């Protein structure tokens, strides 16, 4: 555990450190807004209609029907947070830190403050300015709330640098579902989002985390995510990005430390315009009998570039892991770069990968034209089919919701 002084020291040293991958961003070009810039709302229904519609596109439903609660951060301000479910606590991180003195030990524990300048700047804003934006979600021991908690990071102002630090804890034998949507107001010409998320899965717990991104064309995105999974815990991450973005680079890393722990990453990416999407998933299989599955589907349109990464590291015997990356390159000016990595440092483990990048099979297009679809309709149907993978291990309530979210994202493509 890092003391506040350690965090500060580390962050100070790393505040100009470039990220290991992805294009470098000049942070000084962005404005650091005050955490009180936007006023809080009494009800999530009170946000403007335009924002509501945008939220709905990323799965955040302001009617809060079939939701366990909602959290909304506008730029740097936490404008709404409310938990409907008795099983789950949800609040702004700052409030949570005041309420629970034990929460300190969960800060910067699975994401390091000196990872790069994005984590460092987030840590510095917390320590120096007292800007502790982001959410705290905790499912109580033994509870199973079927409805998801919804959280949204919204960028509403020009050239802001939004930072958020989220702590998600699933206590022993609990089940927690989170839908998180990130979006931008449609008049934003440039902005930077940095979201640090730390997940803690206690023994026997399960978290599903479904994230839909809908950024604007000039937004830079640098999420930094770490997950630690104890005995018999299961973490499922679903990620959907089908709209344009300037650049996104993220490499969430799960540590399967516990016995029988399991991590599943499923992602759907569609590159539009000149987006540069660099998204990977990394799992350390450190626990006895732990397992991981990383599945991604990517299609590149226009001049987009998609780097689809995956890294499995097995450090003890008897662990299992599989990486699967399928891509369709739909434009000559676009690129898909699949980087599957397997790292085995123990005997008797089982890890595999499967990567296939290609084009749409012409026979499939012709088959559909013979049923009356035009070539364009046929390829769009095939691409949507390719991307709409079945997301596994969700409760039925959420499976439907996730399917709806995927369909909606694909429709907007």
């Amino acid at each position, binding site marked *: 555990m890092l003391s506040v002084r350690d965090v500060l020291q580390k962050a100070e040293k790393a505040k100009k450190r470039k990220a290991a991958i992805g294009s470098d961003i000049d942070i000084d070009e962005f404005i650091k807004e005050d955490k009180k810039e936007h006023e809080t709302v009494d009800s999530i229904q009170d946000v403007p209609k335009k924002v509501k519609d945008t939220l709905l596109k990323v799965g955040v439903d302001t009617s809060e029907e079939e939701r366990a609660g909602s959290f909304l951060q506008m730029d740097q301000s936490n404008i709404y947070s409310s938990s409907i479910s008795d099983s789950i606590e949800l609040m702004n991180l700052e409030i949570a830190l005041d309420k629970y003195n034990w929460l300190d030990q969960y800060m910067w524990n699975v994401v390091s403050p000196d990872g790069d300048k994005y984590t460092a700047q987030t840590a510095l804003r917390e320590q120096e300015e007292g800007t502790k934006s982001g959410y705290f979600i905790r499912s109580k021991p033994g509870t199973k709330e079927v409805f998801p908690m919804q959280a949204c990071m919204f960028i509403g102002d020009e050239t802001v640098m939004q930072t958020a630090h989220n702590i998600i804890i699933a206590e022993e034998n609990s089940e927690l579902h989170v839908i998180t949507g990130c979006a931008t107001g449609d008049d934003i010409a440039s902005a930077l989002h940095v979201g640090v998320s730390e997940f803690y899965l206690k023994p026997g717990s399960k978290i599903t985390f479904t994230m839909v991104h809908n950024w604007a064309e000039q937004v830079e995105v640098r999420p930094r995510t770490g997950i630690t999974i104890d005995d018999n815990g299961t973490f499922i991450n679903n990620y959907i990005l089908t709209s344009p973005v300037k650049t996104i680079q993220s490499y969430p890393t799960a540590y399967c430390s516990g016995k029988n722990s399991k991590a599943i990453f499923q992602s759907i990416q569609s590159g539009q315009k000149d987006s540069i999407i660099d998204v990977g998933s990394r799992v350390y299989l450190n626990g006895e009998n732990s397992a991981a599955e990383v599945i991604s589907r990517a299609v590149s349109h226009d001049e987009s570039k998609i780097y689809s990464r995956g890294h499995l590291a097995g450090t003890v015997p008897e662990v299992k892991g599989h990486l699967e990356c399928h891509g369709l390159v739909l434009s000559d000016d676009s690129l898909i770069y699949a980087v599957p990595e397997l790292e085995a440092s123990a005997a008797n483990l089982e890890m595999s990968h499967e990567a296939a990048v290609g084009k749409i099979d012409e026979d*499939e297009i012709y088959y559909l034209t*013979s*049923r*009356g679809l035009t070539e364009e309709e046929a390829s769009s*149907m*095939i691409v*949507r*089919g390719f991307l*709409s993978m079945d997301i596994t291990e969700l409760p039925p309530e959420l499976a439907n919701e996730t399917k709806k979210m995927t369909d909606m994202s694909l429709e907007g493509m």
Partner: protein
Amino acid sequence: MLLEITDLAVEVNGRRVLKDIDLTIKEGETHVLLGPNGSGKSTLFMSILGFPKYKIVNGSILFKGEDITRLTTTERVKRGIGVSFQNPPAIKGVNLKDLLKVESGQDPKEENLTSEMEELSKKLKFNEDFLERDVNLGFSGGEVKRSEILQLLAQKPDFTMFDEPDSGVDIENVELLAEEINVLLDKNKKPGQRQRSGLLITHLGYILNFVGADMAHVLMDGKIACSGNPDEILEDIRKEGFKGCVECARCVTKS
């Protein structure tokens, strides 16, 4: 005339695969296309359908009096041409139900199929779960054929081509398929009242026990070697194989 093919020549990858094809099919008629493997039967189907790989280098195809030789597949299909494939490709993530909605002209956003399509699905032994499966992915031989016929029933074409609709299908299901093929060919109507027509490729001719044909054509080396009464021609082929047809190529009668 529903379909009128005159002097047709087709190339695939620069190689001539069909030549001097003349074929006319009237409203309400069912014709059978016979011939050894590689003689160009499926090629003729794909040429009528207008797949880009099949280049028409000579001749013309008229459908309902309109020259469709230069039209795209989609445009031809919109005018009433349909085909059941022998080995259709599997498409991941595209389920049979969604495809049926498009084919029957239904709004794809609607949750359920039309009651007509639901009934037809049941008739062809597809349950709700099966309809949710990705089209042709892991389908058995018989399931492929039944799904092809079901899709055609959704499309309701005026002219349907069937490529080996009975191959790999057990006897019980051949009768089931034949029943629906007969619907597509207006066989339930009196001969004079039939509007819809078809062209059938069959290897063994077994399906002809259940689907009546008005005329048969034998394709040899990309040419129609002979045309005539289906029973007589089949009888000859059963006795002498396609060799007899080569000799017969001299006495080609243009229908």
